[in-house]
């Protein structure tokens, strides 16, 4: 007997987004996680970011098709910002892979010392730029985040004294 698994896309997206943000902020501090965890967390973040894009693939396709046609300015800004975020994430992960000590990429690929220093330098500032873009990205989608979180969080019921009506009902009576 197979049990049907209900896939709630919105809930999945919200959970993934929260996990991505938390993991990114933590992964930015290798002193907190340690070098090994930092590297694996970074790689996992790359995978999670791809899943995030795939979950919103329909939107990406639609906007790409209509980008140079009639489209809301807000959507266009979102799209360009998402592109910048994707590019910055790619730079962060790629530079991380290049200087990885667990993967030993530099040794395997025979990257010169000077080139390694350049990759390190890129890996030092790219996450900071990405953090700013992540903040703007979250800010632009804040309404969705707040509304969805409110929808899935267990509601806190405030106990009112018997006979007292909620304020909405009081207004309705006016």
């Amino acid at each position: 007997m197979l049990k049907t698994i209900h896939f709630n896309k919105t809930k999945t997206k919200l959970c993934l987004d929260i996990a991505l943000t938390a993991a990114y902020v933590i992964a930015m501090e290798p002193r907190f996680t340690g070098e090994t965890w930092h590297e694996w967390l970074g790689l996992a973040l790359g995978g999670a970011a791809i899943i995030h894009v795939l979950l919103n693939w329909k939107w990406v396709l639609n906007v790409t098709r209509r980008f140079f046609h009639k489209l809301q300015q807000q959507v266009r800004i979102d799209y360009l910002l998402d592109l910048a975020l994707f590019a910055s994430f790619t730079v962060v992960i790629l530079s991380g892979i290049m200087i990885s000590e667990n993967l030993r990429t530099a040794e395997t690929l025979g990257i010169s010392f000077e080139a390694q220093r350049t990759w390190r330098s890129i890996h030092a500032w790219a996450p900071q730029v990405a953090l700013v873009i992540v903040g703007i990205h979250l800010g632009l989608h804040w309404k969705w985040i707040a509304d969805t979180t409110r929808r899935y969080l267990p509601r806190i019921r405030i106990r009112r004294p018997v006979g007292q009506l909620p304020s909405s009902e009081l207004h309705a009576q006016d």
Partner: protein
Amino acid sequence: MRSTKRRTAIVLVIVVAALALSGYWLNSSGRLDIPRVFAVPGITSGSGEGAFAGENRQHSQGTSTTSQAAPSGRGRHEGGREGAGLNGTAALDVLSNLWFLAVTITVVVYGGRGLSFVMVQMRRLLRAGHAPSVLGKKQP
């Protein structure tokens, strides 16, 4: 409508107060490292300050020898190898990142709301300017 505006204002005051207090606390602990975002080191020169101290040190030691093993100057990465683990200073660094993220989100959210409010008011003013004025009409 009025209660919504009041609620928005209260939330804004709470958010700003929380960010200001946490920012003050992080700053007094010496972990609020905002200038690092703007003090981007030169890609090839390796110049920078604060977060990239390790890189500078390596620079001053001289990097002409290619026989050196893995480069050691990594600034923020340097501590990862030496003192990994859940220590307090590193946790404050994570909080500092979170604080910076919260400030960016707040600026975008409320900046956007403010901008849309200004746009609506401007549009209203423009529409009022185009509309035929009752006062300017010649009386018969």
